[in-house]
């Protein structure tokens, strides 16, 4: 029939209507209307038949074999019907360029920092190597290993650290500057040391006890005219850190030089409670005994 007369039986059925009919989810009136149309319209009935073929439960033997082949092929093609997260739009090239430049800056910063940091380390090793042969003066600077005092006047045999190294150490960075002031003290260039150390103690962010102590050493070694400043700096160091061993040692030494034996003795005892066994302790004990 009936392709021509289908129009007389109303609008053709959608795929959803056809599968709803097969499911049996339609009410009686709608179902009857659909059946009337399906009897009259071959197109719709053929499509219903197609869905019936597709949806039938039983699988034919030839279908089983073909399905297995199809499944194997699907597996071989590594098709996984799991959608991947949507890929974001690629960054424009300019972003990569900026990121590359930024990365270069960061690398340069760290490389530069590490190389700057290594200079004071090398310089300090050089200074340590120099002072390891000879202790330049009685007072004790921070970080100095003990060695029996062998104070001499400056001579050609004085620490022979190249002046280039001094210049390099004092101009590069704050760390180098600290090594520089240590080195200036070792070189007995007290005026220069005092100049740098006074700059250091004027730091508004606060000054560690070590700097006060070393400035006190510079004052102490630069002569009796600066003893009062030396005492003030040692006391500043102890105010910042009451158990600062070099400051206690130096202040006791200063009081010894000033003839304030009782004060020297008291500080010596304080020092010995903190450091009873080292060479420094032995030395300060001897001086207190004198």
């Amino acid at each position, binding site marked *: 029939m*009936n392709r021509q007369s289908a129009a007389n039986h109303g609008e053709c059925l959608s795929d959803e209507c056809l599968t709803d009919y097969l499911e*049996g989810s339609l009410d009686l009136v709608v179902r009857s209307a659909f059946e*009337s149309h399906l009897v009259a319209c071959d197109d719709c009935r053929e499509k219903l038949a197609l869905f019936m073929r597709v*949806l*039938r439960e039983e699988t034919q033997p030839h279908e089983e074999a073909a399905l297995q082949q199809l499944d194997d092929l699907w597996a071989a093609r590594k098709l996984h019907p799991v959608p991947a997260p949507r890929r974001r739009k690629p960054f424009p090239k300019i972003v990569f360029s900026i990121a590359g430049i930024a990365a270069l800056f960061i690398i340069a910063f760290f490389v530069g920092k590490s190389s700057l940091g290594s200079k004071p380390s090398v310089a300090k090793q050089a200074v340590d190597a120099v002072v390891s042969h000879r202790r330049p003066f009685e007072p004790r600077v921070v970080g100095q290993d003990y060695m029996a005092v062998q104070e001499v006047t400056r001579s050609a045999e004085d620490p022979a650290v190249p002046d280039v190294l001094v210049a390099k150490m004092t101009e590069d960075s704050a760390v180098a500057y600290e090594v520089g002031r240590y080195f200036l003290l070792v070189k007995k260039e007290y005026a220069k040391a005092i100049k740098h150390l006074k700059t250091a103690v004027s730091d508004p962010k606060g000054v560690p006890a070590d700097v006060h102590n070393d400035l006190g050493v510079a004052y102490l070694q630069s002569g009796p005219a600066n003893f009062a400043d030396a005492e003030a700096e040692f006391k500043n160091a102890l105010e910042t850190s009451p158990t600062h061993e070099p400051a206690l040692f130096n202040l006791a030494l200063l009081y010894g030089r000033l003839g304030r034996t009782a004060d020297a003795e008291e500080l010596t005892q304080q020092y010995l409670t903190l450091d009873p066994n080292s060479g420094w302790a032995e030395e300060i004990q001897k001086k207190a005994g004198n």
Partner: protein
Amino acid sequence: MTDAFRFGRQAAGEDLSSADLLRLCGQRLTDAALWKEFQRRFHKTVLTFVMRGMCNAFRNDCLEEACDIAQDVYLRMLDNDGRMLRSFKGDTDFSVKAFLSRVAVNVVFDHYRRSKAEKRRPAEVISIEGARQQGRDLAGEAVELDTASILSWIDVERLMDSESDRRNAARNVLIFKLHHVDGFSVQEIAGFPGFGLKETAIRDALSKTRAHLQRRMEK
């Protein structure tokens, strides 16, 4: 809607009904666990539907093509951020299968429509004698089709009129046609809940309709 869906208990999707799993996959297009469960439950079904949708076109040398179409079925479901899946309204397992079959059949149709359009070529030039021969062939075919259509129309009208069970007349004729014209077995027809009949009832309906037709033809 199942409790599992309502209370968001959907870690691996195993507790979900097929219908809820379908909807949830539409809502969470990148949830690997859910889609794995989807694949576990429906992948073979999708392949089967594609294969059946291809009907006679499906041959063993068409496996690659069938694979492409199956892939397109998944893509079609994901179109518009999974709108088809999200807007799925069914509750039963059959409704899920019906949904998958609709998608598969439509993708197959679109595939062949596209292939046909690509293969379409400019009109061929044939000889006058060839055209006459084609005309004769087409005329014969047209007569044959017309006859079949007329007979079919008369049969339907007669069958509908002669059906004693007027309420189910259309259904019985539809079953008769599905059986005799489209070649479905009684068992296959009874397998669809839409007809609402068991195998024995379908056999009865078929024999009654056949008897009515015979009576009508004898008159």
